């Protein structure tokens, strides 16, 4: 049952073969036994989860069940959750019990889903390995000497290790897709503006977007149905008619044009990853798709552009952490300025401070045009590349990450090497496009490889169709990490 999809679990609940309290209890037991080794959760709150499960059972008994009613979902610790510790992986918020719910949390609550716990993450979502968390690194369930990716590493680990059937994540430069790839699960970053950012602790507001992480495309579609929708409290939330993201899952792929950017299959990509991705594309040809070469010439600029824009926005967003209204305050200080300086020096970790310093520098007097404005101009070129490419194809494919999961500690002392591990995912956030990663086999050391599927704006239903048809033809997505099967 721990390996069942959401539709199967929902059917069991509807048929009263199992109660939500029993189901939640099973996932909690597994989480409690595995978490000391994998560190996927920062907070488990058994009593609260079980109370939510009993309320869901009452909804089901009253005939008021939705698709996710009674299903346990792991929530990334970036989402403010009323009455729960909400840390964002930082010492700065290590004492923050949220007084309100994020929009995403409200949506899951209204659907009757059960919050099974808050997942570990890179501090303030800044990282690609989950090693920057104040709560310690998460381990990859396929190999505990490897990182799970980041920043949504706890969510990816929880789903891969079957501690939760599905989870939420957020993606500013690849933080859903890269950990999904490295942990062998499916994850989707929606078009910018589809999911409200209200109550989602901000990193880089023009790039941040929440999305689902689960075992299959079908499960992602069900999650997306709950998470998306207009919210007036987020000024960038888009007013659109609600969609059913499951509607196109069963469409055949005959005639689908897959664009393969020539810039994606170059020396940066490791051979093992290239082989798995090429095999996946061959499978798509069998399913009736054809491939066309496309070009994204500005792709190579996306990492430098991102490391100007994201830190600039972060330095502004994180100025709210001043030790006055909530969060960490240094125990000793001389005056107000000293209180700010010490609280922030002690409350933030090294990577967060590094990015605040970069952001402060590029926005400072005399450097604004050379860095910030130049980066915004290049952002337009990067977005324009995709618009051109989508004139020749329906969907773009490539690797999610240039390598399989790397070892813990391998890149943590070299920020630039760490930043380059997101080379394929970042351009999508700059353009605001939707994209996903699905499991596509294994590379070196039997570590998972992710296939990156990039869609045009609002093409989520089509991307899910493309992913689902592959998952009907292959079984990578149902494989569990070997050490956990016993």
């Amino acid at each position, binding site marked *: 049952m721990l390996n069942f999809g959401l539709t199967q679990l929902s059917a069991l609940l509807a048929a009263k073969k199992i109660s939500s309290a029993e189901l939640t209890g099973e996932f909690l037991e597994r989480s409690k036994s595995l978490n000391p080794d994998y560190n996927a959760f920062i907070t488990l709150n058994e009593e609260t989860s079980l109370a939510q499960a009993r309320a869901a059972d009452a909804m089901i008994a009253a005939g008021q069940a939705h698709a996710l009613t009674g299903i346990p979902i792991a929530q990334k610790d970036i989402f403010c959750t009323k009455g729960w510790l909400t840390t964002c992986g930082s010492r700065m918020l290590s*004492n*923050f019990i949220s*007084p309100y719910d994020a929009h995403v949390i409200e949506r899951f609550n209204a659907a009757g889903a059960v919050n099974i716990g808050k997942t570990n993450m890179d501090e303030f979502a800044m990282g690609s390995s989950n090693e920057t968390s104040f709560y310690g690194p998460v381990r990859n369930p396929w190999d505990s000497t490897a990182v799970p990716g980041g920043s949504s590493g706890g969510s990816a680990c929880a789903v891969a290790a079957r501690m939760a059937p599905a989870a939420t994540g957020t993606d500013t430069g690849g933080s859903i897709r890269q950990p999904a790839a490295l942990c062998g699960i499916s994850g989707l970053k929606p078009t*910018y*503006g589809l999911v409200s950012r209200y109550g989602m602790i901000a990193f880089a507001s*023009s*790039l941040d977007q929440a999305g689902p992480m689960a075992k299959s495309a079908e499960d992602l579609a069900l999650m997306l149905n709950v998470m998306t929708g207009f919210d*007036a409290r987020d000024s*960038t939330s*888009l007013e659109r008619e609600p969609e059913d993201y499951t509607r196109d899952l069963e469409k055949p792929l005959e005639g689908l044009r897959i664009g393969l950017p020539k810039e994606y299959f170059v020396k940066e990509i490791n051979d093992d990853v290239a082989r798995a991705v090429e095999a996946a594309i061959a499978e798509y040809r069998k399913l009736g798709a054809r491939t066309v070469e496309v070009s994204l010439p500005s792709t190579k*600029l996306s*990492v*430098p*552009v991102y*490391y*100007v824009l994201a830190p600039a926005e972060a*330095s502004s967003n994180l*100025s709210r952490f001043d030790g*006055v*209204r*909530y*969060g*960490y*305050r240094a125990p000793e*200080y*001389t*005056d*107000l300025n*000293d*209180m*700010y*300086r*010490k609280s*922030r*020096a002690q409350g*933030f970790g090294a990577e967060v*401070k*590094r990015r605040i*310093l*970069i952001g*402060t*520098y590029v926005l*400072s007097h005399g450097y604004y045009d050379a*860095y910030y*404005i*130049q*980066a*915004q*101009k*290049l*952002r*337009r*070129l990067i977005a324009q590349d995709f618009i051109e490419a989508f004139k020749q194809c329906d969907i773009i494919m490539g690797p999610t990450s240039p390598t399989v999961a790397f070892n813990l500690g391998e890149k943590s002392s070299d*920020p*630039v090497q760490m*930043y380059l591990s997101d080379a394929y995912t970042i351009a999508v*956030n*700059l*353009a*605001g496009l939707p994209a996903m990663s699905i499991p596509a086999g294994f590379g070196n050391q039997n570590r998972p490889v992710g296939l990156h599927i990039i869609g045009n704006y609002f093409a989520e239903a089509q991307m899910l169709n493309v992913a689902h048809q592959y998952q009907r033809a292959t079984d990578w997505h149902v494989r569990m990490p070997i050490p956990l099967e016993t």
Partner: protein
Amino acid sequence: MSLSLDDVKRVSNLARIEISEDEVRTALAQLSDIFGLIQEMQAVNTSVIKPMSHAQDVMQRLRADVVTEIDQRESFQSIAPKVESGLYLVPKVIE
């Protein structure tokens, strides 16, 4: 361009983050590497390109000028580091 120790100190001060002499040196080395990467941007002539500040070309929504927030002072202050009589306490600023 190259960063100096003074740049790092100046920016740390602007960002209100205390930084020790040891940390300044480590930060300088790492930030210099990162700016080496960022420098690749300067190779492109962008004189005719309009900056893109956001992922969607949409206008900021306006809302009616009405009160939408309820009073939650007690709940918000219950998680503050230091409060007294409904006020947030900070070190004295004005003598």
